[in-house]
Structure formats: structure tokens, C-alpha cells
């Protein structure tokens, strides 16, 4: 029954967005006119990848670039900002949209709106080699109150941990992921938790034989990220979704994200309609 409702809901949305494609939203008109969109991008490989000359690429900006091209906006001006500044930047209309690993979470849906998911992935831990505390799930961390874990403040992983019995004073927050890995190397924490591909990429770069990757973490949902917009950009979001659907249908989408390690299939059954309360 739920599936049927979902099907009709998405059908309805398609209809609405098909209709609005004849009359472009004001936001899209403005972006087309100025020839570029300002996009907030976080600094987290492989979601985003900043080249040594400052050029921003990576899975999320590349998808956004392709979608914007379909919409007729030629250029993507990336603004690399901290995760903590992303939602305020959208609310204050500092940027036209944000992308790169901002997971679709119910409490975030209260302040911003999301496109359909573009990057989905499992969660991971980094632990000392051999996994001395035998940590495979968040419950394992909660079971031993002496253990410390590190993740970023306000991240999905923080919430997963708290919901699964980890005590708040077991969590040490890092400012950037490499700080978390440093804490793990120095023995200040026992486990590092972040998105699977982010952790994997970081461990590859750190190249420390004393660390080990645990992936996927069972008992937590697949995390899905999408492009995020200001609350008032519902029409622009619909246009973005249409173009994203086109990109997914042609297979170009898979060609963009798979080299970065993401799976196009993982996004297939996902929608912000189910991930946000009330399907906002």
C-alpha cells in the first residue's frame, strides 16, 4: 500500500514538475541570466575533491554540474565552506544550493529542502589494526563505557551513536576528519566513525598499517545525500529533480559517480519523500 502511495506521489510530483517546466521558476531564470549558480561544497573527499589549483570536482559537484548544464545554467561556482556553515548559508541565501555529502535527515528537512538522493553509501569505522575492542556496530561501543569514539558534531554518525546506546560523554568531536584520524593514531579515541567512502578515502591517504577499516556497519541505514536548497526554492528543486532523473536515465549519472567509488544502484530505491517527514 505504501509503495502504491509512493508511486502515485512521485507521479504527481512528476506531473507538477512537468507543468512547471513550461513556466520556469524565478530562481532558474535568474541563474540562467547570470550564467552561473553559486554552490556550497564541503571539503570531504570523495564527495568533493579540491585540486591543487583550487578547482572543485568530486562526485557531488560533478553531478550538480551535469544537472545544471541540463537546466541551462552553464557554470557552477563552487564555494568551499565548512559543514557547519552550509545550512545557515542556504537559509541566508548566500548560496543557490549546497551539495556534497549533506545527508538527508529529518531534522535538517525542517530548515532546508532536498533534491532526490544522488549519493548513497554505507557507514564505516576506523579502528586500530586487528580491532582490539571488537567493534562492529554502534551498540558495541555503547556496551563498553570506557571506550571513546570520534565523529563530527551534528553529523549523522553522532545521531546513530546516541540512538544506539553510546553515551554522549563517550563522543569526542573532530573539526575535520584528519583530526579524527590523528586522535585515533595517538590513542586518544578507540574508534573513528564516518561515511564509508569518506573513511576509506582518508585511510588510503593516511596509509597507516596500524589502522583498519570496518565497513559496512550493520544496524544503521544507508546514508543518502542530496543537493539542498532554501525552503522557498520548491519549484527550482522540482526542476533540479527532473534534470537529475534525466541524468540518471541516460546512464551518464553512473559514469560520473562510479569512478569516485559510489554506486548508482544504491540511489535507485531512495527518495527524499521517505527520508523527510511529511515528504518535504
Amino acid at each position, binding site marked *: 500500500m505504501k509503495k502504491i502511495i509512493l508511486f502515485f506521489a512521485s507521479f504527481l510530483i512528476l506531473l507538477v514538475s512537468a507543468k512547471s517546466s513550461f513556466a520556469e521558476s524565478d530562481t532558474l531564470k535568474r541563474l540562467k541570466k547570470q550564467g552561473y549558480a553559486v554552490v556550497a561544497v564541503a*571539503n*570531504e573527499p570523495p564527495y568533493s575533491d*579540491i585540486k591543487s589549483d583550487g578547482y572543485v570536482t568530486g562526485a557531488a559537484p560533478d553531478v550538480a554540474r551535469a544537472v545544471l548544464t541540463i537546466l541551462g545554467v552553464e557554470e557552477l561556482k563552487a564555494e*568551499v565552506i565548512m559543514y557547519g556553515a552550509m545550512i545557515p548559508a542556504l*537559509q*541566508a541565501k*548566500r548560496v543557490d544550493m549546497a551539495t556534497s555529502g549533506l545527508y538527508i535527515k529529518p531534522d535538517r528537512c525542517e530548515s532546508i529542502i532536498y533534491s532526490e538522493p544522488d549519493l548513497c553509501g554505507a557507514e564505516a569505522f576506523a579502528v586500530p589494526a586487528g580491532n582490539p575492542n571488537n567493534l562492529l556496530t554502534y551498540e558495541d561501543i555503547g556496551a563498553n563505557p570506557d571506550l571513546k569514539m570520534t565523529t563530527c558534531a551534528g553529523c549523522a554518525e553522532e545521531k546513530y551513536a546516541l540512538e544506539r546506546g553510546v553515551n554522549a560523554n563517550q563522543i569526542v568531536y573532530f573539526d575535520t576528519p*584528519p583530526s579524527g584520524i590523528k586522535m585515533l593514531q595517538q590513542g586518544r579515541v578507540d574508534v573513528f566513525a564516518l561515511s564509508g567512502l569518506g573513511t576509506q578515502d*582518508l585511510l588510503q*591517504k593516511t596509509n597507516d598499517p596500524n589502522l583498519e577499516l570496518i565497513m559496512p556497519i550493520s544496524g544503521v541505514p544507508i546514508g543518502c545525500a542530496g543537493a539542498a536548497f532554501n525552503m522557498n526554492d520548491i519549484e527550482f528543486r522540482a526542476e533540479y529533480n527532473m534534470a537529475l532523473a534525466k541524468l540518471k536515465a541516460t546512464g551518464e549519472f553512473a559514469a560520473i559517480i562510479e569512478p569516485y567509488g559510489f554506486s548508482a544502484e544504491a540511489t535507485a530505491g531512495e527518495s527524499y519523500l521517505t527520508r523527510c517527514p511529511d515528504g518535504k
Partner: protein
Amino acid sequence: MNQVLSFYPILIDGTITTIILTILGAILALVISFIVGLARISTFTSIRVLAIVYLEFFRGSSALVQMFFIYFVLPMWGIYFDALTAGVIACGCNVGAYGSEVVRGAVLAVGKEQHEASKALNYSNYKRYRYVIIPQAIPIMIPTFGNLLIELLKLTAVASLITISDLTFMAHIIRVQTALTLEPFLVILVIYFIIASVLVKIVDLIAKKFSKGRNIMIAGEN
């Protein structure tokens, strides 16, 4: 290390941003220091109260919060500054608050007989301050202003939170992209130190220029 140095284009960009932020912030801070500092010794109570409110507000709250406020909260009320302007305003207003105390202290440190003498010569209020008091107060201010300037340089490092890509932010980018920790921080440590050293040198030159023909100790102690 080479891996870090290959990021030199963004390091140069970040250095330039930091320097611009420091210079513009310093100019704003200097102007505010004088306005608020002199307002503190005004004979009008209302002006004095305004100056105290300003001083206590900007000195008593965190620069980071002020920056966040100017950049992210004011737009909701229709007041819109771009990132660099918001950074300059926050840095300038903050350091300006500290600077106003320096100006006030230095002006008060100029001997009472200097006021009396200029009054005896029938100088107007403006002329008294412009030609007698402030020229003697400036050499007293300069060393403390030099300190504040270095403080300002380091304050710019928090500007990355409002999307300004300054030197510290570039170090974070390099860090995340390469997973190296020591090297990017070592590089910006050296860059900050060089900028600070140049600023100290400039302040020394200015101090020399303003104290020419004057004995600071006498002006300050009398």
C-alpha cells in the same frame, strides 16, 4: 612536503585574502578607535554612553559570534554584506573596541598643563586636540596598536567560518585532501610569522616617524 607545496596556488590566494582582511580590518579599526576613544572623553553624556555601549558590546562578545551574526543573521532582516565585507566589519569593529581604550588612555596620558596651555592660547577644542594633544598621544598609542595589529592578523583565522577562504581555511583544505597534518600547518605557521614580522617592522617605522623630535617618556609621564 612537496605534496603540500603543490597546492601553492590556493596558498597564495589564502595569503592574499588574509593580508587584505588584515589591512582593511586595520583601517576600519583605526577609524573606530579614534571615534569611540575620543567619544569616551566627550563632555556630552549621551555620546559617552553610546561609546561605552559600543565598547562593551564588541569587547564583551566573541568575534566569531559577531562574524556569524553579520554574515548569516543580518541577511534575514534584509541587510546583506558579502563575505569579505562582513569579515572586515567584524574584525574592524572588534579590534576597534580594544583600540578605543588605547586612544582614550593615550589622550588622558598627555599632561594636564598641555590642555591648560592651549586653552590659555585661546585654541578651540578642535585645534587643541588636533595640534597639541593628539600629536603627543600618538607616540604613546603606537606600541599598543602594533600589538593589536598582530592580534587582528590572527583574528582573521576565524573568518573561514563565514566562507572566506583565508590562509587557515586553505590549510584545512590541503589537510583534508592529502591527510597530512604537520606539513600544511607548518607552512602556514611560517607564512603567518612572516606577515607578522613585516607588520612589526612597519609599526616600528611608523613609531620612529611619529616620535621624531619628541621624547615619548616626557609626553607620557609629565
